[in-house]
């Protein structure tokens, strides 16, 4: 089953990292990505640009309503994601708990719905 692993954390924290700190963080993520790939469970993933680049759009009565910023203003922001394929939630949570972001942020794990039937 495929799960998306959403990495939430303080964006302010990420942007204020010193260069060596940022390098260390990227090194940890590279290592984690390699581990996922080596285990054969990695299906995709990426870091996201900051929420200042986000636009939220809704269509109401045929009209597009756009707002600047992420869908919800919260203390923690979505900073990146992985898509993994593992047998069950237990195993997905095991992988999520090893994600570097789990140490200071929160990781949301959600199963993907099977692709839509026509």
């Amino acid at each position, binding site marked *: *089953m495929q799960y998306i692993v959403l990495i939430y954390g303080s964006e302010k924290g990420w942007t204020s990292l010193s260069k060596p700190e940022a390098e260390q963080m990227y090194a940890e993520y590279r290592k984690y990505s390699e581990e996922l790939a080596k285990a054969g469970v990695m299906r995709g993933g990426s870091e996201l640009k900051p929420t200042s680049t986000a636009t939220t759009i809704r269509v109401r009565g045929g009209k597009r309503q756009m707002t600047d910023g992420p869908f919800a203003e919260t203390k923690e922001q979505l900073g990146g994601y992985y898509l993994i394929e593992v*047998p*069950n*939630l*237990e*195993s997905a*949570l095991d992988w999520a708990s090893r994600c570097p972001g789990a140490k200071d942020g929160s990781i949301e794990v*959600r*199963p993907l719905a099977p692709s839509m039937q026509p």
Partner: protein
Amino acid sequence: MLARAIDQLVRREGPRVLAGLIRWSGDFDLAEEAFQAACTQALEAWPRRGLPRRPGAWLTTVARRRAVDLMRRRRPDLPLEAGLLEALAADEAASDSAPEVEDDRLRLLFTVCHPALAPAAQIGLALRTLCGLTTAEIARAYLESEATTAQRLVRAKRKIAEARIPYEVPPPERLADRLEGVLSTIYLVFNEGFSATEGESWIRADLCAEAIRLGRLLVELLPGEAEAEGLLALMLLHDARRPARTAPDGTVVPLEEQDRTVWDRTLIDEGTRVLDRAVARGRPGSYQMQAAIAALHARAARPEETDWPQIAALYGALLRTTPGPIVELNAAAAVAMAHGPAAGLAWMERLERSGALAGYHLLPAAQADLLRRLGRSVEARAAYERALALVRHPAERRLLERRLAELG
């Protein structure tokens, strides 16, 4: 009479049968629906035709046939091979071997107590599937509408299926962690039953019995787990005091005023035995410590004989393993008994200043008791009044009012 016996039999055999059905079908919801149908059929058929030789196997067979029907009806589009499901339904005798069946109940316990489910959902599912309570009974016990309970159960079952929460006993490296969650869920059930002293008391006392049943099941299925034994001992020792905990008018009777002759000796003996066995394993933990405290109370024939220094020491140890303001309050109360009210009071005042227990009526209530013992009645009165402003449960309120009146 017969109906009652059958009902009890179904309840006893039920969890095993249901747990096996879930493994067999891989579908929590389907298994439960088929199981309910089988129970209904049993209640109808057994009084007429007599009890089957192996009631569990009877229920399994009937439920599997029903599950096959349900599967067909739900997914008529599925190209089921005609013979396959019948074959599955017919092989119950083969898979009825004891060890596997035992494993199933343990699997079920770990699945319904999975931390990915909200605590209330874990409790509901455990009571529903492992204790055989109906949705209506769970709703009554938790003082909520049946619709609310039903919805919570449906949502939880859906999450199990859709997020694919595995139906398994966690692997060894996860077991300790997950066991802690299971123990805490069971203890929540017990406390819910134990903290209630009036109103729907019959069903709530039942919650204690159900929690103890789950505790026993866990000890039986995971032998050698000291903390599981610790929790069972703790619940037995607390439950032993039940007959003395409330006055006929529903007022809470504090420990030191309880009629100790009505404490249930059988439960105390069993709790003590289970605790001794746990402690001998040399792996201390917070449930064992709490049980040891309860055992020391149980051992004292009169309040004056209570070994308070030992209890205070145990609370100290408990604070190191499971720190928290409520444990601290209990520790302070024990210190007051062991080393005089002034020492306990000073600690409680620090606790009050920390603000960690703001809004919790038992802090001013405990302070008031100590102030009363120190003869500081004006301050005691003020503290009782603070406690009264916060207390919600009527039975506890009456005790505080009585204390206040006694101050004169």
